[in-house]
């Protein structure tokens, strides 16, 4: 089955679902599997079911059914005295099988023929039509043959009605629809019949394609409407016509009315369900209305509340208007472009991307992931501009503090922002409109209203020159940052981390795709790197000050170190020539922290810095040529500084000799007797508890513990103990930065002097 065809089916089903035929919609999942090749396997599957008891009975029933079908095919034998009984018996057989297992397409073909040919009485025809329940599919030919009987005039009006009702319900089971579509004119003519009209309308609603919409049909429908008044079924068909040819017809649907066709098809509904369940096993999900009113957005009449995202509508109207002269045939024959309403799947998007009819209001893409894909890859500027204008204006218009004291409105705005953020996450790309919106709104923001949404918008600011954006955004953000609670500070750091990550991802993609970046303001890699490093320095400043304001809160420090976990890996993870170290205020706060997990995180970050710098050094040596991005020796020196301090504290028990220098006299004055040892892995305040539990584990009966006893071999065991406690960062750090010879406590620092 080609995807094209499947697309049509899906479309037809969707259209149905606009009416109230819920079960047709839910069958769609099944229908997709109904490829001719698969249909067998489904029925086989049914046989394979462990329903052995039934099997024998089924065989018998099968024979009886064949006989019954044969009987009906031959027609009633006039001479037979007990003919009443015979047809009654056979009809019972057919009904039993049909309601239980459904009928095969050949059987339906024959019986449908019988029912409409008028060989039997009206009652028989009715009962027969009622039990035309397909086990798998209905062949198109059967339907065409059946329709041809309608012209002969052998069947009564009620049979015709029943047939049309049946056809509507079974529409999705018909294997192909090309031939049936050729009968469009015939069906359309049947609209004349007042009793048939609603059902024919429904059928046409399912059947109509763009090429079926003709001016003379529009006129006919309008005449009918004039004659019969505002009928829901006519409205349905008219609105569908309008979808296809908006220039021919103008219809506005009443806001409340969403049900076009009465759901009077319960007749077959339960039977179809039973058959489906029998043939397929019980369906996993309960039947439910899939496309409820939620999908039908009521037209917002009130001008001022015309708020959220517009509904899809293909833009054919606009295009038509662009022409100087427009003939009706012109606009009907434009079959080349692919209507938006039919776009259901990604492959369809790929196939039709060159001839997609864009929505008349670009804002509607926000609700359609397929179109978001399109927006993402299209380089057609008007498309992006239309979206930009719409989003900018809507954001400004909707922004909550222009309309204060309105809780409902506030919620709506929050939802709108959430939708935008979802779209940005989906595209992994920020919108310029949102950036422009932040320029205007961030200076006025109280830091409370829609906090989570605002901070997420910040993290999706498209990459640009930091120094240019700083006065517009980040300076205002800093003011809020310093004056707000610790939780706000943490959320800001979190979103800045995400911003950094988004920028890095974008740059790493961009640089490796084309030599010159597409960014508006930076044209060189150096400029881009500069911008990123400025962002990192900005966060460094925020963090340092925040640590002081929040008196070295561990909680805050976690968020800060999370940020640097991203920073330390830029060179290796994103393949971008940038290594920026953390400021001393952060490093020493972390090193002297009372929390082991902080120290562990610090170790991990140092380990990653080490790896990145080594990799950078290696690359420089390989390339030989002095590239633009060789790191200054200052970075290496700074790193060595930190490394020496860390190893001095944690490992060699010689703190504050290199790295940061503290006058020994001051240290003496602290009154700590053995200050040199007091920061190593054993005595460090954050590790002390580990040391004690390690010793207790070694010798549980000991009443006093002497942590200084952890020396020599014990030192090694102690380290293993630490590693086993989940301090992976420490493990990596010690493995990479401390060379341990067989002699424990060796001073095996890789001094990195070669940097």
């Amino acid at each position, binding site marked *: 089955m080609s995807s094209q065809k499947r697309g049509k089916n899906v479309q037809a089903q969707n259209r149905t679902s606009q009416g109230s035929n819920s079960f047709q919609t839910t069958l769609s999942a099944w229908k997709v599997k109904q490829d001719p090749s698969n249909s067998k396997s489904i029925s086989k599957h049914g046989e394979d079911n462990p329903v052995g008891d039934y099997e024998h009975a089924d065989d018998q029933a099968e024979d009886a059914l064949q006989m019954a079908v044969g009987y009906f095919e031959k027609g009633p034998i006039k001479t037979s005295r007990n003919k009443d009984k015979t047809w009654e018996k056979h009809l019972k057989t057919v009904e039993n099988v049909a309601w239980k297992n459904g009928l095969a397409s050949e059987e339906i073909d024959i019986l449908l023929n019988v029912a409409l040919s008028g060989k039997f009485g009206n009652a028989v025809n009715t009962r027969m039509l009622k039990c035309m329940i397909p086990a798998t599919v209905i062949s198109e030919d059967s339907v065409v043959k059946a329709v041809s009987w309608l012209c002969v005039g052998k069947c009564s009006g009620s049979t015709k009605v029943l047939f049309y009702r049946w056809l509507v319900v079974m529409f999705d089971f018909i294997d192909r629809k090309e031939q049936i579509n050729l009968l469009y004119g015939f069906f359309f003519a049947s609209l004349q019949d007042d009793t048939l009209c609603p059902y024919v309308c429904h059928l046409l609603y399912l059947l109509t394609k763009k090429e079926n919409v003709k001016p003379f049909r529009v006129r006919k429908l309008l005449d009918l409407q004039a004659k019969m008044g505002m009928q829901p079924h006519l409205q349905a068909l008219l609105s569908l016509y309008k979808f296809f040819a908006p220039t021919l017809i103008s*219809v506005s649907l009443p806001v409340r009315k969403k049900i076009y066709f009465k759901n009077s098809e319960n007749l077959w509904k339960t039977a179809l369900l039973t058959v489906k369940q029998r043939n397929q096993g019980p369906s996993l999900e309960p039947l439910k209305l899939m496309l409820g009113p939620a999908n039908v957005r009521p037209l917002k009449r009130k001008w001022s509340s*015309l708020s959220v995202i517009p509904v899809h509508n293909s833009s054919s109207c606009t295009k038509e208007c662009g022409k100087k002269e427009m003939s009706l045939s012109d606009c009907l024959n434009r079959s080349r472009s692919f209507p938006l309403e039919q776009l259901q799947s990604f492959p369809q998007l790929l196939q039709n991307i060159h001839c997609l009819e864009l929505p008349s209001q670009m804002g509607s893409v926000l609700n359609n992931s397929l179109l978001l894909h399109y927006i993402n890859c299209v380089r057609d500027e008007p498309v992006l501009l239309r979206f930009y204008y*719409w989003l900018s204006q809507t954001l400004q218009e909707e922004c909550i503090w222009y309309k204060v004291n309105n809780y409902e409105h506030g919620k709506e705005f929050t939802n709108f922002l959430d939708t935008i953020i979802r779209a940005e996450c989906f595209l992994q790309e920020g919108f310029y409109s949102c950036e422009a919106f932040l320029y205007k709104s961030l200076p006025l923001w109280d830091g409370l209203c829609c906090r989570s949404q605002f901070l997420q918008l910040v993290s999706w600011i498209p990459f640009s020159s930091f120094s240019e954006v700083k006065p517009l955004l980040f300076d205002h953000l800093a003011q809020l940052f310093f004056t707000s609670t610790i939780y706000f500070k943490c959320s800001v750091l979190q979103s800045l981390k995400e911003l950094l990550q988004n920028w890095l991802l974008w740059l790493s993609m961009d640089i490796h795709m084309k030599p010159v970046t597409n960014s508006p303001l930076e044209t060189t890699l150096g400029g881009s790197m500069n911008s990123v490093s400025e962002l990192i320095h900005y966060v460094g400043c925020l963090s340092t000050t925040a640590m002081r304001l929040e008196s070295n809160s561990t909680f805050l420090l976690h968020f800060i170190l999370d940020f640097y976990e991203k920073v330390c890996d830029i060179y290796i993870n994103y393949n971008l020539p940038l290594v920026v170290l953390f400021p001393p205020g952060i490093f020493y706060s972390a090193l002297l922290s009372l929390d082991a997990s902080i120290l562990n995180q610090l170790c991990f970050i140092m380990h990653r810095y080490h790896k990145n710098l080594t990799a950078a050094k290696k690359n420089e040596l390989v390339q030989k040529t002095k590239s633009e991005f060789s790191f200054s020796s200052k970075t290496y020196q700074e790193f060595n500084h930190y490394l020496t301090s860390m190893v001095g504290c944690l490992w060699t028990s010689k703190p504050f000799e290199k790295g940061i220098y503290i006058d020994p006299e001051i240290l003496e004055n602290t009154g700590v007797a053995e200050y040199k040892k007091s920061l190593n892995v054993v005595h460090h305040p954050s590790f002390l508890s580990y040391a004690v539990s390690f010793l207790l584990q070694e010798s549980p009966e000991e009443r006093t513990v002497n942590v200084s006893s952890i020396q020599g071999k014990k030192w090694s065991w102690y380290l293993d103990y630490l590693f086993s406690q989940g301090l992976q960062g420490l493990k990596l750090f010690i493995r990479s930065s401390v060379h341990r010879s067989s002699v424990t406590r060796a001073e095996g620092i890789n001094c990195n002097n070669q940097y």
Partner: protein
Amino acid sequence: MDSYDASESTPRQSTSSRPEDYFIGATFLQKRLESVRKQTSFIPTPPRRKIPHCSQLQEDVDPQKVAFLLHKQWTLYSLTPLYKFSYCNLKEYSRLLNAFIVAEKQKGLAVEVGEDLNIKVIFSTLLGIKGTQKDPEAFLVQILSKSQLPSENREGKVLWTGWFCCIFGDSVLETVSEDFTCLPLFLANGAESNTAIIGTWFQKTFDCYFSPLAINAFNLSWMAAMWTACKMDHYVATTEFLWSVPCSPQSLDISYAIHPEDAKALWDSVHKTPGEVTQEEVDLFMDCLYSHFHRHFKIHLSATRLIRVSTSVASAHTDGKIKVSLNNLVK
């Protein structure tokens, strides 16, 4: 697709497309962003404004049409650029909008496009209503009721009027590509429900977005100063200011009416350089009014909010309603 041909001959095209635009690397979207940045980072309003010499307006303006715009209260909306709008298709737009309005009014009934109905929509250009040569032409949309009796006045009653214009839109026009027509100001007069229907049609057809345009107190005081400055042979109305005091349970409005000649005299004493108005002059003008009021009533008006200004020339309300009474459209 085909509409490219059509739009090539639009007046806007011939005036505003500059070939060099297409060769600059930056896209319009980027230009737009940069201009937003500039607007945000600098002071929003220039400290001084030149009074233009009404150049375009006098030349090719249709006095009858301008007269039509006067003495009406207009509600202001700001509008994003219209996508694929073409001045060649005004007739077609009339037809489509007509059908749309009829359909909206008879909710649920479908109507054939072009069907004869008892309203009439007319699109027409408003020549000359623009600031510079580059500004696109303004255009007018009118909804007329067709009278049932042929003997009566054939034109019928005007039900609703709206017009779109762009005056001194240089900074905006730079960032708009040729697929768009930039008419950032929309003025409507008539039932709000009609504005809603017509606005909806424009939004659907040209993918634009309307939003109500409020005039803040800052701009109102500018208007007050500049309208006071206008030379008049005779004044038809007093110069009146309205301040709102936010207090509960009901807000209190303070109305302050001055004889227009007194106001003019005050302005003349404040105003220094001919041909331009500065921020200081406007501030001083308002401060004088404030201190005068304070001397008599001991109320600091500067602590309240200016919500309406009306002069013989024009009047404006903070909620975006404006009315021009004189044949002088300079704001």
